[in-house]
């Protein structure tokens, strides 16, 4: 036996490491994701991401400024920012109209402004087959805390997962770790939206509930993370099976994550 081990020690060592990794994965299925070394890795990566993104963005912006008139460009940027805020306010107002008196709580979103949100720049984006996250250039120094909702002018982006003083990691809606309570805007039916990497799936929707392709899903506020009434996703496919008590509903996020450059973190 000792001779066998000595002879094949390299193979056994590799097999041992693979076994450890496999055990690690299966242990997390039971106990949830291990938060091992997350902050140091985020600190190092966000430091370099800031430098790289900053350098490229400044190069891009220098080139743009040479190509266009400086004043027009700046004015355009201000108008874009203003437009984003107005679009967000408009979305909230529309939702408030629909919900009417029954949802008076949602009126607080009319006051959504700089004091209740922090605007952050996306400095890193990792959308891979195993997860979907972004890194933003604002962190605990700017009042950002774990599990705060992150939105864009189109709707919900995700929630804050890991925070450092100057940066934070945000889990996108499509990440398998992401779940949020939603409501069908048309008929107020409720469900739980889960990330499925390329899109999302609406869970626990009874077989008898009327849900159609094109229905807009908005946050219901029941999860305590996302405020009520913000656009989340659009239903793209509904499948009903006789044998199942629930429908299979596939929805696509309203936010185009690949084009996102700035986001708002809701601090209240």
């Amino acid at each position, binding site marked *: 036996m000792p001779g066998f081990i000595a002879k094949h020690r*390299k193979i056994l*060592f*590799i097999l041992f*490491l*693979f076994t450890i*990794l*496999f055990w*690690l*994965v299966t242990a*997390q*299925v039971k106990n949830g*994701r*291990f938060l*091992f*070394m*997350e902050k140091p*890795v*985020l600190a*190092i*990566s*966000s*430091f*370099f*991401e800031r430098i*790289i*993104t900053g350098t*490229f963005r400044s190069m891009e912006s220098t080139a743009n400024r040479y190509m266009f008139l400086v004043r027009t460009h700046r004015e355009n940027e201000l108008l874009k920012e203003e437009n984003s805020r107005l679009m967000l306010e408009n979305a909230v107002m529309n939702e408030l109209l629909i919900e009417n008196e029954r949802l008076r709580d949602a009126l607080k979103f009319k006051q959504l402004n700089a004091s209740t949100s922090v605007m952050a720049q996306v*400095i*890193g*984006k*990792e*959308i*891979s*087959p*195993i*997860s*979907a*996250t972004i*890194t933003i250039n604002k962190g605990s120094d700017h009042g950002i805390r774990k599990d705060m909702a992150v939105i864009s002018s189109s709707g919900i982006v995700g929630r804050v*997962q890991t925070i450092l003083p100057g940066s934070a*990691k945000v*889990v996108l809606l499509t*990440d*398998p*770790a992401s779940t949020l309570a939603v409501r069908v805007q048309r008929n107020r039916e409720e469900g739980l939206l889960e990330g*499925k*990497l*390329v*899109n999302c*799936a609406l869970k626990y929707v009874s077989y008898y509930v009327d849900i159609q392709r094109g229905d807009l899903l908005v946050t219901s506020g029941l999860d305590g993370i996302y405020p009520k009434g913000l656009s989340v996703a659009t239903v793209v496919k509904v499948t009903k099976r006789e044998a199942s008590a629930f429908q299979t509903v*596939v929805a696509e996020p309203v936010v185009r*994550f*690949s084009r996102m450059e700035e986001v708002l973190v809701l601090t209240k």
Partner: protein
Amino acid sequence: MKAGVYFTLFFLIIPLQASLLNFLSIAGIKPDLALALLFIIGLLTKPVEATLVGMATGVLLDIGSASHIGIMGFTRGIVGLSASLLGSKVLNITSPSNAIVLTVFGLLEGICVLLFLQLLYGFVPFVSLLARHIIPQSIYTGILGVVLFRLIAIRDVIGFLKRRSIQKEF
């Protein structure tokens, strides 16, 4: 040289992947630089070293993402080991045709990851992920591989490494 490559791989791979490669992304798809570098390292090193480098890179990528720690560690370990075993059979390491093998590796690794996810989360849109993400990314990684293999051939990195190892032996 080797320490420099490992330093780049371990410390810069997450920020490079998450920021620099975004500027190269086409329709949201970007090449997998970590996989391409690991494949090259695998071709040049012994199985144990390649496996360890693969596992370490994978675990770092797992920590940097929001997924369960160990998935990429496991698959990248296999990639490193396979590339190393393949390296002993490959005649010309700098040949751009290795990029095709790199594409296949990317594809196989993607399928392995999807199977893992299927196991973990139950329902995963397998075909959709394969068509919309894994196949395009593998091809893009293969193209990046062509560039890297070309760079290696131009700079004669392999010759440099061999000369260094001979000098060390004496």
